[in-house]
């Protein structure tokens, strides 16, 4: 209860710090860009992340119901799922919130003995983290589905013409995607 009020009061600072921590995962130039360009069309990534975490934060508040939080998580994870991150890095942003809150509210929590509430709140974050994995996996699956669909779209007409199957240029079933990467 008390923590809820406290979080609300410090919302702006927390969101800002959380956002900063997330964009710090990107190279410095990019972090600058993500932070400073406020336009949602010139900087869709920054805008999506900022809007996403604001919504997530609101839903997460101890007093609120977070059952419909998935779309907001999805917006952010969808971006990170196609960037140069490992799966754990891609979803790590959610844990950064814990760190930010502890740093921001350390004193108040100590003074008011809010550890119980904090623990409960962090449990909520942990649960959320689990669903981020699910979403991440869905995004990755979607990518594979899209790849398959593309091949299907391209071959469908030809397959329709029964005996006219021909080789798809550039499509190399003999080479796996990760074959390209040096081990």
């Amino acid at each position, binding site marked *: 209860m008390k923590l809820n009020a406290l979080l609300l009061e410090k919302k702006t600072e927390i969101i800002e710090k959380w956002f900063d921590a997330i964009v710090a995962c990107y190279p410095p130039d990019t972090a600058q860009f993500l932070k400073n360009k406020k336009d949602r069309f010139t900087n869709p990534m920054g805008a999506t992340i900022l809007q996403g975490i604001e919504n997530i934060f609101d839903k997460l508040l101890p007093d609120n119901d977070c059952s419909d939080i998935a779309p907001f998580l999805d917006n952010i994870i969808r971006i990170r799922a196609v960037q140069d991150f490992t799966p754990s890095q891609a979803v790590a942003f959610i844990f950064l919130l814990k760190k930010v809150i502890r740093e921001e509210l350390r004193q108040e929590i100590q003074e008011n003995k809010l550890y119980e509430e904090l623990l409960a709140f962090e449990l909520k974050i942990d649960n959320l983290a689990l669903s981020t994995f699910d979403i991440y996996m869905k995004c990755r699956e979607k990518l594979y589905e899209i790849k398959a669909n*593309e091949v299907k779209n391209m071959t469908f007409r030809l397959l329709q013409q029964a005996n006219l199957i021909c080789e798809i240029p550039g499509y190399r079933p003999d*080479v796996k*995607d990760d074959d390209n990467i040096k081990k």
Partner: protein
Amino acid sequence: MAKDQTPKADELFSTIDYKAPEKSWMDTPVEFKPGTFCHGSRPKYLELLHMPYPKEWKPGEEDWKLPENWKEIFLDGMAERLKKYRSFKLFMDICVRCGACADKCHFYIGGGDPKNMPVLRAELLRSVYRKYFTTSGKLFGKTAGARELTVDVLRELWYYAYQCTECRRCSVFCPYGIDTAEVTIIARELLNLLGLNTDWIAGPVSNCYMKGNHLGLEPHTFKSSIEFFLSDIEDITGIKIEPTFNRKGAEILFVTPSGDVFADPGTYTAMGYLMLFHELGLDYTWSTYASEGGNFGFFTSNETAKRLHYKIYAEAKRLGVKWILGGECGHMWRLIHQYLNTWHGPADFLEVPKSPITDTAFENARSTKMVHVAEFTADLIRNGKLKLDPGRNDDIKLTWHDSCNTSRGMGILEEPRYVAKSVCNHFYEMPENTIKEYTFCCGSGTGLNAGENMELRMRGGFPRANAVKFVRDVHGVNTLGNICAIDRAALTASMDYWVPGIRVAGLHELVANALVMKGEKERTVNMRNEPLPGKEAKE
């Protein structure tokens, strides 16, 4: 001690290095990340084209099987191109690193890799230029922004040359008109001197060279592919169409990207052409020899592009047509508009294009003698020559994607809009800084529309998708229209990932839906065989 009881979150996962290191770009070696690059070209394609150094190679591997004197080849190639292209020479020299272009590239915006900032992308090659072609670079090396050409640098050049779709968006913002696409084009040429193409580009190029189109459809297959549409059209409209192929003496030769002949949803656009031309009674022919308007050769080298596009004029001459009509395609039109006539002109065996239906002479195409089908159709509608029922598209809430090449390398913006608005009642523009000359790339142009680099394509497609999402949320837009064959395939994928539920349609698919044809049966379904609005109940 009591004070610091709470463990810090980053201690909990200290193994995860989530903070990006601060290093200058020169000290950050390239790392080939999965999902961002294409397979290497297979030797058979290069052999067929007589291109240098065919080999089996994998870009992600250390050994690229480079020829002994690769450095010399590369630098000689650079010297030659500095002499041949003022653009290249100038763009190597005059960048002031003002940063105006830096955040304009869709790959940077959606991916965040600084080397995808156009200024840095060009700097990768510029640093080599300084080292070997400028005095300051020779003398002061790194302080003057110069660096040695090494295998690692070569790999980096390759990696980022194939992460640029040559969309020219950066060029719009540069105060000196520096076009990073030009730099990429040259970089790819240089890499091709060493046999370092991608398979997705080299394959279509060799197909197109030998068989007339990227897909390698042989003449009979090309013909039967189109004939296959005819039965679909007959089912939908009740009208039998009989197009001709390689017919001498036709008035018009029609050339379009072959992608539309076989890949959904481009096929619906191809059906649209067939229906429109039939309805007009146009005296035109398809060609199986010049069965490709697109040109993956342009993503290889200028010479290769020229070799492929030779067929268009040659075939027009052989068939004795009066002028050429070109279908919807992005890079095809940049090339026809800005290159074809220079490569293979003057086309004085052709006449200034004149619409046989409206008698409009296309003065703007008086030298190249090729008209864009959107110009052609816009003229028809303007002169009231088409009977249209836009109500058939009432289930469509349309927004318009301007393709990079036709926007920034030609400027065909209003014609397709005019046509689209004539055949669709619901039309909504995306935000101003994402359309027309500011348009965002689909993310898969210049031969990057392969499967293995899907992550890259999705990153690149994000800024565009983000704007689509906006109009979807605000206006309920459900269809993304365009005049590009690659868009039709690439945006379908990108929408599927970012904004599921948005469908991608070519302009002439929309025209085909709305076109009221003489003697047609009552239409109940659209080109995709889905019930028309108001006809759902009838089944």
